[in-house]
């Protein structure tokens, strides 16, 4: 009797039970609006009616005040300021840059919440207050996805003043 046959006739010690569930996920009204806009190269945020803060991406309600944002959206620039950063030396999925790369928290101009993304720059150049701009995929590849932005890249503008982003560190 071969080892395999012996195994087949012996007691069952292991039972493999794969689990999977399928979902027809809907992003929701405000996230859908955001995703449809980014398919057109537009970045949409929403303004809280209570304190005027602009949330990016747009969302259904203000997490601080619990009020509905409604349908008003604010279009934001794809330029922004680095408020903090980190050098990454371990591989990760879906990153457009080779190791080591820089992950950054970007405060888009006009927004009051940060966007976490990656930066294409020399490691020794990155710093807080650095001005950056999004590098987009070719127009014909845009879909309803934040992956339309490949990464950020430094631009030739003077550093933003610390006071303008200190709240977001």
């Amino acid at each position, binding site marked *: 009797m071969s080892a395999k046959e012996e195994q087949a006739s012996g007691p069952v010690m292991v039972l493999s039970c794969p689990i999977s569930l399928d979902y*027809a996920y809907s992003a929701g009204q*405000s996230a859908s609006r955001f995703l449809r806009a980014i398919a057109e190269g537009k970045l949409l945020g929403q303004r809280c009616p209570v304190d005027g803060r602009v949330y990016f991406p747009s969302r259904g309600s203000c997490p*601080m005040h619990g009020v509905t944002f409604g349908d008003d959206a604010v279009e934001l620039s794809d330029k922004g300021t680095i408020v903090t950063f980190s050098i990454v030396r371990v591989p990760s999925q879906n990153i457009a840059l080779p190791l080591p790369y820089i992950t950054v928290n970007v405060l888009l101009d006009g927004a009051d919440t940060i966007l976490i993304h990656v930066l294409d720059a020399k490691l020794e150049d990155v710093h807080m207050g650095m001005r950056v701009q999004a590098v987009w995929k070719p127009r014909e590849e845009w879909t309803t996805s934040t992956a339309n932005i490949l990464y950020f890249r430094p631009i030739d503008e003077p550093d933003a003043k610390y006071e303008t982003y200190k709240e977001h560190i």
Partner: protein
Amino acid sequence: MREVAVVGFTQSPSLRREPDRNEIEILIPVIEALRKQTGLSSKDFDFVCSGSSDYLAGQSFAFVSGLDAVGAWPPVCESHVEMDGAWALYEAWVKIQMGYADTALVYGFGKPSMGDLPLTMALQLDPYVMMPLWPDAISIAGLQARHCLDAGLMKPEDMAAAAVRDRGHAKSNPYAQVKGDYTVAQILAEPFLVNPLRRSDCAPISDGASAIVLAAGDRARKLCDRPAWIRGIDHICEPMDFGVRDLGRSRSTEIAAEKAGAGRDKIDVAELSAPFTHQEILVERALGLSAKTKVNPSGGALAGNPLMAVGLSRIGECATRIWSGEADRAVAHATSGPCLQQNLVCVLEGN
């Protein structure tokens, strides 16, 4: 014991499928309406507790985004149960009893239409013996119904009558999903969905949310002309293994009802959360309801079944009838798990 009352209740309509809104967008207007109804703002809630399920949302920690609807700044004292909101209410009630809070916001929400609900429910079975077989929730309930029929505990006509009653009552409930005039003969003429269950024996699949405000003592009296006082609340869980349970009665409902004092006085109104007709009959019996009790004036779970909110809504539906004076004493029921595994009974009084 501190006196604690239900002083606010709002709900979304139960819909078979919310096409555009996500769970949070379903919830937000419900919480906003509750603020308006009670005149309270998020800052006025000493404690916030929610009930929802990541398995329905299809993502982990999905409940965290529910706090967007509350407004969690400055930081709120908050908790969550992976159960129906009725159990979140129980936790809030305990918190108030312990003196940690005088007011609490409780909510439940779910969007089961995103997945295949009967299969999703299979994941609540024991992971070694039952779950690998992937028995869907309707088939499991069907086995229980078969047992009830074969043991002579009820007839198909009794089951159909429960559906007829609930759908009739639901005609006056703008939030209900399944409503209208039906006859027992009409329902018995339906083909079996899962023998012996017909489609009308099953609660609908519903997306929805509901929310409640609890308040203690004088705070409740200030917020509400006739608060719905929680005079008893208890929940009991039966074993996971079907083989050791008596599926022809709801022992846990019986014990919870006794501990909550449901039978101590007349019951004007009862709201039941049983998702199948035969289970509704079992719960009615376990609560010892008489013909004088109006059962499911809202239509109950069989008329609208927003999972994770449906039990909380039963408490809310009872409370509204106390506020209006339509009832002096009401009993709400919530259930969780397969074949009425875990049951909660809440007794509400106007005086």
